[in-house]
């Protein structure tokens, strides 16, 4: 093989034949590196966008639904058998159904092995227990038995001390996985860009040398097919390298802005429900709810640190302050009435406003994330096939450009 190559380089047609072979070989390498890089890159973006992030969103949605469920249960308990509890019961049923869907989805989409599976299974078990305790609380409450409040307290405590740590462990697994996917995408993306650049550059150099050889030895200024092949390689290299770099930038932006924002608002929405539950538990505790008041203060502080003080949050906190002033002033009945929306719907409306506001911001953040991902995807649209076609075109053009010259010498 080596001696054949050495023999080829002794004569002009041999040199041309050698160049043709080298150009075809490099065109194939260029196509393979481009094709595989685009495919791998698209696959990595897909993993981030359609696996890691949705898993995190699912875990966070489970958290929100659990807290929504508990908020509805405590609110219904506070209302007792009165008409004011009807809406809360419907909310509870809806949240329970939605939670069931999310948990089933999470169970059927275990991405990260045994730890995640065990946590999800344990969570499903705990949710069953929780529902049982809430139903006991509800039944005893309607019979007028105080043990109902104990069941509710135990159920609410289990959400915070048993279920939340499980959700957090799943969330942590998913976030770790996302970080690892993202880091490996970033480093592999650099490597892919480098591979396309190197094979592209090598092809351009060989095409350029061949072009110069023909110009010097065959008194032709330009070999048009070779020139066209060079232009194709230059254009495709530049386009694909730029495209992959822009894709990386879009993914970075999606991670740093869209995803972080989505995560923040998902968290914020869950915390809002948690705060509302604390208000109900505070009222149920009748003057001995300092622990729930302190808990709420800490959550409000964490919430304002994360999302600032939107008007909807301020509005809700103003209503909450009114409820507490009434309660501390010995007017518990009015405080409970206000919290349940009896007479004035202001307190209920203020929480609905808060939830709607946070939901809208969540939608917006999520939209931004998926827009960035779609844009990142678009940067490499059909590029894999363009590489394959370009390799064929370069090989064909090289043949068209060099074969007549080889035949001229042989003739």
């Amino acid at each position, binding site marked *: 093989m080596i001696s054949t190559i050495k023999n080829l380089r002794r004569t002009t047609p041999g040199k041309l034949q050698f160049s043709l072979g080298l150009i075809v070989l490099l065109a194939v390498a260029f196509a393979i590196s481009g094709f595989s890089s685009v495919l791998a890159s698209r696959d990595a973006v897909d993993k981030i966008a359609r696996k890691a992030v949705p898993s995190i969103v699912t875990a966070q949605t489970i958290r929100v639904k659990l807290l929504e469920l508990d908020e509805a249960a405590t609110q219904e308990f506070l209302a*007792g*058998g009165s008409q004011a509890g009807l809406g809360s019961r419907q909310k509870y049923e809806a949240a329970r159904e939605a939670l069931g869907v999310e948990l089933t989805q999470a169970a059927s989409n275990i991405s990260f092995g045994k730890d995640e599976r065990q946590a999800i299974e344990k969570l499903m078990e705990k949710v069953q227990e929780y529902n049982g305790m809430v139903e*006991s609380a509800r039944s*005893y*409450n*309607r*019979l*007028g*038995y*105080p*043990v*109902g*409040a*104990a*069941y509710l*307290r*135990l159920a609410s405590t289990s959400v915070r001390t048993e279920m939340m740590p499980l959700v957090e462990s799943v969330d942590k697994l998913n976030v770790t996985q996302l970080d690892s996917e993202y880091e490996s995408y970033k480093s592999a993306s650099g490597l892919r860009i480098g591979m396309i650049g190197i094979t592209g550059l090598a092809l351009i150099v060989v095409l350029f040398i061949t072009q110069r050889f023909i110009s010097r030895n065959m008194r032709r200024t330009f070999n048009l097919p070779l020139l066209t092949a060079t232009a194709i390689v230059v254009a495709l290299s530049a386009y694909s390298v730029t495209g992959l770099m822009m894709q990386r930038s879009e993914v970075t932006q999606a991670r740093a802005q869209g995803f972080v924002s989505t995560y923040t608002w998902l968290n914020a929405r869950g915390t809002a429900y948690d705060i509302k539950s604390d208000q109900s538990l505070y009222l149920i*505790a*009748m*003057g*001995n709810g300092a622990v729930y008041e302190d808990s709420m203060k800490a959550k409000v502080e964490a919430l304002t640190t994360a999302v600032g003080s939107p008007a909807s949050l301020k509005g809700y906190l103003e209503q909450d302050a009114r409820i507490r002033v009434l309660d501390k*002033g*010995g007017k*518990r*009945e009015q405080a*409970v009435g206000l919290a349940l929306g009896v007479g004035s719907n202001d307190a209920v409306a203020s929480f609905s406003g808060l939830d709607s506001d946070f939901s809208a911001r969540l939608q917006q953040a999520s939209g931004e994330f998926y827009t960035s991902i779609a844009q990142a995807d678009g940067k490499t649209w059909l590029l894999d096939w363009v590489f394959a076609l370009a390799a064929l075109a370069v090989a064909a053009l090289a043949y068209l450009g060099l074969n007549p010259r080889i035949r001229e010498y042989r003739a």
Partner: protein
Amino acid sequence: MKITHFGARARTLALGMAVAIAACASSLSMAPQAVAAPQSTSDVTASYRPPANMPRPGAMPAGSYMAKIQERGRLIVGVSQDVFSVGYLNPLTNELEGFDIDIAKQVAKAIFGDEKRIQWVSVTSAARIPLLKEGKVDMVVSTFTINAARKQEINFSEIYYMSGQKILVGRDSTAVSLDDLSGQRVCAPRGSTSAKNIVALNPKAKLVETATYSDCLVLFQLRKADAVSTDDVILAGLAAQDPFSKVVGKTFSPEPYGIGVAKENVDFTRFVNGVLVDIKANGTWKRIYDRWLGQMGPQDPPRGTYVD
């Protein structure tokens, strides 16, 4: 007004002996007094002697703790909200109801002439003394057993109910005493005398502590506790909520209930005792007992003992 008049006469009778011997009515007046512990006595239930003349509702003596309450416009009372028939929040009415609640209402009635002028604060067993010491409640009426250790920290009124510790077990259990519960999980509220008694009387029983009495019933129903042991009146309330349980055996520890008041509020302690003397004598106590605890059998109001 009629009741008040009758109450005053009854109180006079009850205090007749003491007043005659003491001949120091001025020291029993409702004027504010310096903090002083009751004189030493072997009777742990002895409390400050009631005033010879109770002030009329709405006319509390200037400078007294009762005047402060009157000025505030409401009496702040710590109660249980989960002890059925004693102190519990009735979800059907969203009102606190029970024996302790009605006793507390009598104090509000004596101060304001209106038993509804109360701000209720739900208390757990462990929170009763701290809330009194921090001045967050004026008094605690919450199945509060009078004992020497607690009297070091707060004042107690005279005894208003004599309870005793028993056990609650499953309907098919053969246990009839704490001795039969060795190796079993027995629940009692954290910080209660019941919990201490379980450890003292049967160290082999496994004590399970909770925040409230109802929490014990939940653990019992979830089979995380085999029995509950606390005062008979509380157990009766728990058993009424669970037909698969029963209260068995004899009372093994007397639990005299008193109303807790902050240590420094001696004048208020005397006033509360005056109210208790009145309601025991005028039939109000009996009416309240029959309404809430009558199913436990007839009982006469316990007699108070005093020190100056």
